[in-house]
């Protein structure tokens, strides 16, 4: 059921048409707690240390992919580790 395509959140972000502001707003709307600047740093590293924050960001990206007709290609935390 893991249909994810991108290896990191950064790759996924770069595959969307969203600006940093736009993805931050979506992430914030889902309960994300990193500031815009922190999110910028996180997207450069591609991985978020906190599991919840990682998945909130992955889901924010995936909601955009869903709007574009794709099925959750951004990796949730469990997709990156042995689940």
């Amino acid at each position: 059921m893991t249909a994810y395509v991108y290896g990191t959140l950064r790759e996924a972000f770069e595959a969307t048409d969203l600006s940093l502001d736009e993805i931050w707003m979506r992430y914030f709307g889902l309960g994300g707690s990193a500031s815009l600047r922190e999110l910028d740093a996180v997207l450069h590293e591609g991985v978020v240390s906190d599991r919840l924050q990682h998945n909130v960001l992955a889901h924010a990206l995936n909601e955009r992919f869903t709007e574009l007709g794709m099925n959750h290609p951004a990796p949730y935390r469990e997709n990156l580790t042995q689940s």
Partner: protein
Amino acid sequence: MAAMAEPLLGRQINRELLEAVVGLARKAIDRADSVGVTMAAPDGPTTAAATGDWVREIDAVQYGFADGPCLSAMATGRIVRAPDLSEESRWAPFVADAVRRGVAGMISAPISLPQGSIGALNVYSRIAGRFSAQDEAMVVLFADEVSSVLGTAQTSAAAAEATEHLQLALRSRETIGQAIGILMEREGYDAAEAFEVMRSSSQRSNVELREIARRIIESRHGAGFGSEEES
């Protein structure tokens, strides 16, 4: 102050947008009784938006002394915490005056463009005590949001749209936060697990997470949501 004012020259501050942001910030930050935005300007710092006259009064005092938490945040580009003014040793003349006006605690976060600080978002509390990590995070979030909007939204239409997005995001955030709280209480999950349950359900059913959250809130008194697929 002149050096800080420079990035703003030729830039139109959208007051409506800033007013909307301070209003949202007051709602979103638990400890906030009032919120204001100070911006650098050629004639010195000015209160560009405030949730009330109380803020403007206190800000005027601070500008008069040319010293205080908000101006420190602007000067250093860092968040400045003054959770209990009765125990504050910095900014003595301003603090004495602010306390007389009913301010018990303040926190200020810089509003920055790549060129440097151009202002600060200030939160005023009538009750002393430390600001929670959540409150601090929100102060920084809103300050960053103002920075970003000032950096990009040049037209008032773009600014109005940005405000609307922020409002929607806040509403969605509240809904999801409530639903997480309900699942934690009812199912004994931690926050990450509660989010997990909602986001798998969102993925399975192809329904947006905030809609899943809304259903959980609505089902609060009914059958458990965690007991799998809606029938």
